[in-house]
């Protein structure tokens, strides 16, 4: 009974402490958020200046300003073209790809309750590569179908196969992952088969480059398409943020918290698969971003998806902007596939993250 008498005092104390903690947290999150946005803008501006042609940050501002109709053009058409038609779309697409892959990875990991899940776990990338190879090497579509369109179609085929497989196998989380692995193997084998039997050396090199992920030669069309899909997907995922939190203790626990588990799973799997398909068809299968960035962002922002998802997007965007800059300059004039660089940087980062979380296991 003494406990009951003391309780109000304890509560007041706890309330003020909790209030202060919550306030500090909001401030910290706000700071992280503002710093992230500033860093992204700065990263894009600086990354555009890096390359064989010497360009300064003010040049970038004036080029962007003139194209947006804010200032008069003061750059030569060549320099303007380098900024606006070559480096700008490439850098922006790197940001969009990084953000999209990181968000898809976060959602997949939470939804499938598997820390090894990434955007490609449902076989989307393998399907895309098969689609691309079929167009490039076998010439399906007779030139009317672009590589991107072929990749997109392949990605959707693969995802449909995974959904069908996992549904017939019972639809539980591990069945989804296993179906994804099966589809990945199948489409990788198909890709290898087509390349080995039909492609010449030049085609093989091109296909390989695309398979490893590359942002070279992208245009504004890719940027707009991917940004639009990213915006839609990000808002759908943010709308499901609290639902994703509910999956922490499994589907059963989520269901008892009022979550429509089956509907949530199908909606989120479809939207993230569509975004992944769009990204892969524009830039190839850039590995590791979707696997590692979510873990790093969780270490920064905690596991609540309302804060985690935007921060993951920012982190992914900044990360891929710099990795792509590195990929196109480190062996200049030759270009390294960006997927190779993400993995070279990603593996040590992943080991670090795993090391950091080791104590809690």
């Amino acid at each position, binding site marked *: 009974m003494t406990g009951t008498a003391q309780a109000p005092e304890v509560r007041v104390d706890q309330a003020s402490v909790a209030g202060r903690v919550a306030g500090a947290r909001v401030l910290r999150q706000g700071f992280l958020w503002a710093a992230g946005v500033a860093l992204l803008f700065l990263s894009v501006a600086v990354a555009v200046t890096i390359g064989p042609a010497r360009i300064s940050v003010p040049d970038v501002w004036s080029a962007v300003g003139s194209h947006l109709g804010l200032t008069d053009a003061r750059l030569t058409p060549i320099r303007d073209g380098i900024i606006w038609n070559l480096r700008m779309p490439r850098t922006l697409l790197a940001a969009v790809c990084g953000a999209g892959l990181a968000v898809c990875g976060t959602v997949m990991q939470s939804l499938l309750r598997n820390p090894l899940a990434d955007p490609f776990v449902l076989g989307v990338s393998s399907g895309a590569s098969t689609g691309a190879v079929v167009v490039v090497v076998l010439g399906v579509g007779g030139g009317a179908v672009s590589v991107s369109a072929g990749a997109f179609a392949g990605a959707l085929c693969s995802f449909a196969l995974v959904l069908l497989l996992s549904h017939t196998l019972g639809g539980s989380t591990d069945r989804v992952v296993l179906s994804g692995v099966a589809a990945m193997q199948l489409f990788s084998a198909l890709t290898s088969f087509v390349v080995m039997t039909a492609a010449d050396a030049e085609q093989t090199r091109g296909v390989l480059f695309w398979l490893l992920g590359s942002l070279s030669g992208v245009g504004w069309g890719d940027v707009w398409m991917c940004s639009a899909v990213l915006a839609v997907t990000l808002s759908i995922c943010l709308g499901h943020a609290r639902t994703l*939190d509910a999956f*922490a203790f499994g589907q059963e626990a989520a*269901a008892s918290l009022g979550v429509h588990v089956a509907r949530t799973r199908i909606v989120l799997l479809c939207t993230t698969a569509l975004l992944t398909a769009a990204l892969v068809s524009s830039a190839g299968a850039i590995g590791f971003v979707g696997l590692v960035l979510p873990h790093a962002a969780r270490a920064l922002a905690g596991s609540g998806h309302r804060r985690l998802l935007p921060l993951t997007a920012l982190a992914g965007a900044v990360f891929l902007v710099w990795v792509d800059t590195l990929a196109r300059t480190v062996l200049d004039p030759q270009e390294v596939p960006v997927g190779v660089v993400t993995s070279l940087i990603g593996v040590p980062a992943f080991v670090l993250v795993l090391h950091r979380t080791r104590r*809690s296991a």
Partner: protein
Amino acid sequence: MKRWDRRGATGRLARHEHPSGPEQLDRRERPAPQPPVAAASDEGLRASRVGRQAGGRILLDGVSLAPPPGSTVGLLGPNGSGKTTLLRVMAGVLAPGHGVVTLDGRTLAETGRRGVARRVAVVDQHAVTQVELNVADVVRLGRIPHRRAWAAAGPEDEDAVREALVRTGLADRAGQSWHTLSGGERQRVQIARALAQQPRELLLDEPTNHLDIQHQLELLSLVAALPVTAVIALHDLNLAAMFCDRVTVMKDGRVVAGGTPSEVITEELIADVYRVRAVVTPEGPEGRPSVRFLPGEAAPGRF
């Protein structure tokens, strides 16, 4: 604490308006009761002749359960008797094949998933996660059915979380990582999460399974003291006798006995249901039954 007491008071008020349980006796003496009898007996969560099959096996066979509001009901029975399935059906996680589960007279389907989750909270025997969460994060999950999509947690959410933490004695542990907690502490956090849902019904599936005896007693006295209707699946007959107002015994998907612990927990019933010989004496607290098991198998029983 104060808020909880007030909640209890308003709960009693509501029960006066829709009399049931103990008040039903008074009501019968009054000449013309205003609320119809059906409405009165509809109050709370109840299962009516619920059935469920899976893979040709009958898991539940016409089970009815109507826990009196505010009481603690023990659900007893051997492994595979249907206790877990019944709790899942009553939580709305599993749809019943036959029969119906109602919440204040409306079926769970009519109430909707979120509506059910605001009223009925579930605690499982063992909660596992790989996500890095602290105690407050886990308790905050209980606010999910009360929050809208897109919206951030409001002050009423933080109030409910804080109250649940205080109620379960976890207020000073809010920042501790889930993965550093012991089994007993984890179950207490899950109960705090359930309380943050502000339920009137709490369903617990063998919540003490992985706990030592001290934590078993601690957890069950915490649950029994809560101002909610609690249905607890239990294996330990002595714990059920100590903490439950009523017990329901299941076997092979059917209810075979129900009533107060003294009425139900008898040597005959234990022999019939569990095939075990036992001595039952009224030596528990407040003269409740106390069970001591004997070696050797009991003779085949009635069920």
